[in-house]
């Protein structure tokens, strides 16, 4: 066996040296080479081309270059326009596909009580990591919400395992202190949060107000300085000051209005949820979080969580007009900073009970809300990821710089798939493993219905 291996090694050397060739006459044209590369030739043509290529280093080099291009750049995205619909008129697959669709719809109608999520529904959209004020929210699945409420009502005295986990996740969200524990209904970006699951709409509004406050303070100071300027300069500075502040306030108001609008649709869900929670058998009277902290039974982090979980306000609407008291927020933030640094995801995507967290160092965590456990893998691409969308527990898409698109399906490793552009992709909206729409930084949108093999511009 050793002797045979040595012979094989020597043979490899012989072949490496000896397989150099010249170009054979009658090289294949790029048109035919392209068709061969795509395997669009008949078997007879393909065999004929292969006979030539096997003896022609020139053609081999071209094909090698083409496959290297494909490896480096990806499969060329076939940009289809909206009018190209003839592909579905193939009866061979249309009839069984239609029957399967009808059957699936019938089963879904029977089994699934909740309303379907359509493409236009913002529930499937996860926002990019952008400095924009708007954040988009999605309705929480009822079972997870119910579980959350159960954990809340189980009291925080002898902190349960679930509450501990929630404590760990909410410990860096000071804005949630004394705030209604709305169900996990929203996906958003919270600047102070480390691995935070959700941020209720009133909180986001409060945050928007908080963000505007420092800007207003700065403007006030600037206005004081302007008053001290000579008249001509003061007029110009006032004009300069007015515009940015107005624009900031407009964007803040717009963001808040959007959140209110979305939160309004959450209100009905919350009421239903409250009813179901109140109908549940109450846990025996337990020590409140504050009492537990005072008694030294639980450390500060958990007591803060206890405060949060025990002071649920049934009607979230009451808090929409209230702003978070700055002192408490500052304290909360101060407490946050003093803790050991908890890695924060750049953005997240929620699919059912599975939350996908994307970190700056290319780590991607798949966190199971029910099992309270996560697994971390590395992104298969080096490009920075900017947004993700998880239409279900089994599917998650992510997009990023340079047009990169990756997808994970049914727990399989993340794979890069074909992209329509090389431009940065800043958002993605996925319906399932096959259907998704991406948007570039310049505002162009592309959609796929075959898992990224082909894309059409919208």
């Amino acid at each position: 066996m050793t002797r045979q291996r040595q012979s094989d090694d020597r043979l490899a050397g012989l072949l490496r040296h000896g397989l150099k060739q010249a170009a054979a006459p009658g090289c294949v044209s790029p048109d035919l080479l392209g068709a061969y590369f795509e395997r669009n030739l008949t078997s007879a043509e393909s065999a004929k081309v292969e006979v030539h290529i096997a003896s022609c280093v020139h053609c081999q080099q071209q094909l090698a270059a083409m496959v290297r291009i494909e490896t480096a750049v990806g499969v060329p995205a076939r940009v289809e326009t909206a009018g190209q619909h003839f592909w579905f008129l193939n009866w061979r697959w249309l009839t069984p596909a239609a029957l399967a669709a009808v059957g699936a719809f019938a089963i879904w109608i029977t089994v699934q009580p909740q309303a379907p999520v359509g493409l236009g529904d913002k529930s499937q959209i996860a926002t990019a990591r952008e400095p924009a004020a708007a954040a988009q929210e999605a309705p929480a699945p009822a079972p997870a919400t119910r579980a959350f409420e159960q954990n809340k009502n189980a009291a925080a005295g002898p902190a349960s395992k679930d509450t501990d986990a929630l404590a760990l996740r909410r410990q860096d969200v000071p804005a949630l202190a004394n705030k209604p524990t709305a169900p996990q209904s929203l996906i958003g970006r919270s600047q102070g949060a480390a691995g935070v699951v959700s941020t209720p709409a009133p909180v986001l509004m409060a945050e928007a107000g908080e963000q505007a406050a420092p800007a207003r303070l700065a403007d006030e100071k600037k206005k004081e300085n302007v008053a001290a300027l000579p008249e001509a300069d003061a007029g110009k500075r006032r004009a300069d000051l007015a515009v940015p502040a107005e624009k900031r306030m407009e964007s803040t108001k717009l963001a808040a209005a959007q959140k209110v609008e979305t939160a309004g649709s959450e209100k009905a869900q919350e009421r239903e949820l409250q009813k179901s929670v109140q109908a549940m058998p109450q846990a025996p009277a337990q020590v409140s979080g504050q009492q537990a902290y005072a008694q030294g039974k639980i450390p500060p982090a958990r007591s803060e969580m206890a405060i949060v979980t025990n002071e649920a306000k049934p009607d979230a609407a009451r808090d929409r007009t209230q702003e978070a008291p700055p002192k408490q927020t500052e304290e909360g933030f101060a407490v946050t900073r003093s803790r050991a640094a908890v890695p924060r995801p750049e953005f997240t995507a929620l699919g059912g009970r599975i939350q996908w967290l994307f970190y700056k160092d290319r780590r991607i965590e798949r966190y199971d809300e029910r099992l309270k456990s996560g697994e971390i893998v590395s992104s298969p691409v080096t490009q920075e990821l900017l947004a993700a969308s998880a239409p279900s527990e089994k599917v998650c898409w992510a997009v990023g710089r340079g047009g990169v698109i990756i997808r994970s399906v049914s727990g399989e490793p993340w794979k890069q798939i074909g992209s329509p552009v090389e431009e940065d992709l800043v958002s993605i909206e996925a319906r399932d493993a096959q259907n998704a729409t991406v948007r570039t930084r310049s505002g162009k949108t592309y959609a796929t219905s075959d898992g990224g093999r082909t894309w059409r511009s919208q």
Partner: protein
Amino acid sequence: MTIATARPAQVSATLAERLLARALAAAPHLQGQVLSGSFCDALERSVASRFKDQPRPPSMAEVERYLETLQHADLALACACAGGSEAAWEHFIRNFRSDLYAAARAVAKDFNPHELADSIYAELFGLEEREGKRRSLFQYFHGRSKLSTWLRAIVAQRFVDQVRAARRTVSLDSENGEGGSNAGDSPSGDARHESRLASAPAADPDRTRLLGVLQAVVSGAITSLDPRNRLRLSYYYVQDLTLAQIGRLLGEHEATVSRKLDRTRSSLRQRIEEALRQEQHMSDAQVRLCFDYAREEWPFDLTSSLRNGP
């Protein structure tokens, strides 16, 4: 006896119009940008290219079957661009230009990729004029593959031509020290290597003879391989492709490529050793010596044997 190249059947106007309508339905932005006459000409060029080597002209049914397999929308776009349509060029720039430059960057890292892409882009635009007519590279696109794949094939072809041209202009100093790697590119490669062999110090007087025998046996063994196996070996040993890339080119799974490469290597080794022992009456020790000498220095090239094939 000479066989005249058969003139392919012309494309019927009805068929051309139907295919153009299909192309425009798929690419509505090309409405009014493609002349039916130029599209018909493009179809005829495609048919001529496809059936040029056939002794008899194709039937209408064969022509129609062939034309149905083409990428009509891409062909219409190519026609419109060749005709100078601004709307078509805008669409091309928006959807294909970036891929062209990306392909050039991916493959021609050390050969000024931007210049490569620029020159192809200029040829596509048609800066060259012949008989007062602007000639665009788009006229050579026959729709047998996607336009993006064809563009990549053009990039690959131009890149390979650049590399080969650069190799032919090596300096005299490097030429003198060069081994067998450039032998395939130069017509005098064989003579040069033979003279080098003759002038090498002969530590073993049988060295030259053994290497000569080995060359003939290896040539014969490689020649007897079927094209696909030979291609697999070339991709692996000469083009330095990965198993996955070879699989992509041959339509095989990576594991299949690996298995077949092993099998081909193993059968080649057996064939060579058998030929050396039985036909050349060499002992085991002499066979091992042959391989050792070849590993130290391989002065030959198998150009002629690989070119001729079985």
